[in-house]
């Protein structure tokens, strides 16, 4: 199902074209500062992305309305900064996401070390409006700006032996104060099967609401896999590795029987802590039923013949 952004209730403050043109200059300034080796001040909230080119809203369902920017940027699971979803925005405000290098390595013909600025020049950004379902039973609708992972994987020429993609956050205690704490296996690591990573819905996002991704939402670049629970979508990625074996992942390592490798949104696979049959869309009074694959049924062929209650 395709629908345009105008057809769903827009967020009140959603970006006007005039404002965009006025602020576009700021991106250039911060890029120039980065080039001189001067640490720019933390990304201001309202810096728009200058490179956003096409808009393609993906399979929005009836009654999907954009979650306000304030909600998306003030209710975050990002343990590197705080265990409390309400505190992440404040704790992350001094996070510096420039300079930032992403390394694509492992089973590839052409390994790539690329700065976030070069990456943005190389891959045109698309707007993707996705539902985001957290394993904790709440959900949002977020207008991401990003590009499909398959484009990046095509350029590094994945070897035939590669079967999985491993995504990891940078291990840097100065950037992420809680790394090393709470008994977790840091840095945050997630993985996808190669065909999942190559699916058109899977994107690397660098912005939301046409603005540069704020620190609390995973600056400067994060994964978004809309048919899986939110914890699969790693934030602040610095390493993408093509591997042969299914990688060990952050939450699976912490509590293996609760957070599976696949973590597909599935109302029929119960979770011991939260009901997965229904969810609360933030801002709504009533719960709504949770859809298989978060409503993105086009991914079903990826799992043909698999028992999703075993490979949950």
């Amino acid at each position, binding site marked *: 199902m395709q629908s345009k952004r105008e057809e769903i209730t827009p967020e009140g403050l959603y970006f006007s074209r005039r404002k965009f043109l006025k602020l576009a200059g700021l991106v250039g300034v911060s890029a120039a500062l980065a080039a001189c080796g001067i640490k720019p001040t933390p990304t201001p909230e309202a810096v728009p992305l200058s490179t956003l080119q096409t808009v393609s809203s993906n399979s929005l369902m009836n009654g999907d309305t954009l979650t306000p920017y304030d909600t998306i940027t*003030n*209710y975050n699971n990002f343990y590197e900064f705080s*265990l409390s*979803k309400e505190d992440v925005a404040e704790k992350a405000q001094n996070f510096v996401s420039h300079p930032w290098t992403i390394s694509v390595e492992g089973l590839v013909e052409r390994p790539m070390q690329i700065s976030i600025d070069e990456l943005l020049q190389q891959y045109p950004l698309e707007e993707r409006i996705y539902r985001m379902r957290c394993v904790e039973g709440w959900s949002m609708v977020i207008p991401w700006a990003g590009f499909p992972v398959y484009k990046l994987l095509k350029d590094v020429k994945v070897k035939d032996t590669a079967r999985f993609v491993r995504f990891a956050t940078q291990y840097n205690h100065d950037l992420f104060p809680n790394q090393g704490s*709470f*008994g977790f296996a840091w840095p945050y690591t997630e993985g996808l099967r190669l065909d999942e990573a190559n699916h058109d819905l899977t994107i690397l996002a660098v912005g939301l609401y046409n603005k540069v991704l704020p620190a609390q939402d995973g600056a400067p670049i994060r994964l978004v896999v809309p048919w899986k629970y939110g914890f699969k979508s790693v934030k602040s990625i610095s390493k993408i590795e093509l591997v042969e074996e299914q990688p060990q992942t952050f939450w699976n390592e*912490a509590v293996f029987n609760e957070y599976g490798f696949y973590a597909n949104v599935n109302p029929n696979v119960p979770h011991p802590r939260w009901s997965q049959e*229904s969810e609360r869309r933030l801002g709504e009074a009533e*719960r709504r039923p949770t859809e298989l694959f978060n409503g993105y049924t086009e991914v079903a062929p990826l799992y043909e013949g698999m028992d999703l209650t075993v490979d949950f």
Partner: protein
Amino acid sequence: MKSTRWKIVRIFMHAGAVFPLAWLVLAALTQRLTFNPVQYLEQRSGDYALILLLASLACTPAAILSGIQQIRQLRRPLGLYAAGYAVIHVSLFIWLDYGGDWQTILSTINGRTTLWFGLAASILLLVLAITSICCIQFRMKVWWKRVHALVYLAAALVLTHYALTVKGNLMTLSGKILGVIVAILILAILLIIRTTTFQTLLTHLRGKIQKSDK
């Protein structure tokens, strides 16, 4: 303790127990309950129920340690407040979170061990609260004390519910488990103080101190 000073202590106790509820109501009216207000209300009401239950269970040990026997009188009102917050907690879950949709509620409870523990704890606390009404308490005679020893079972059920609800793993000591560990330690210490072995030791020590003072 003198009656005026004791009155002040009692006022503080009531104020401390009612304040969190008043604050939640105020925060709700001024829309400051985070971006997920339902979950926030559920979690805070649960927190306060647990805190007040532990406070109630701390009265007897506090009386033993301090020698101020009046503290025992706070045990009942604090327990009643704990039961009150537990009722609010469950009501929020049923009517605010699930909109009274019993079919969904039952299937939700059915798949989750943590909710069974929570439900059992709430029902038990409610029974203990009802049987604390003076006339019922009087009629139960010796049975009252026996039945009300079940408050320790209620505390264990609450802690299990809490431990199974937080995102983390007690076995590998990862995640949001600090609150759970603190609560378990507090309950363990309170139970130790109540044992006869500890109290014999305490009298023995006090005797020694008095002797050396002479």
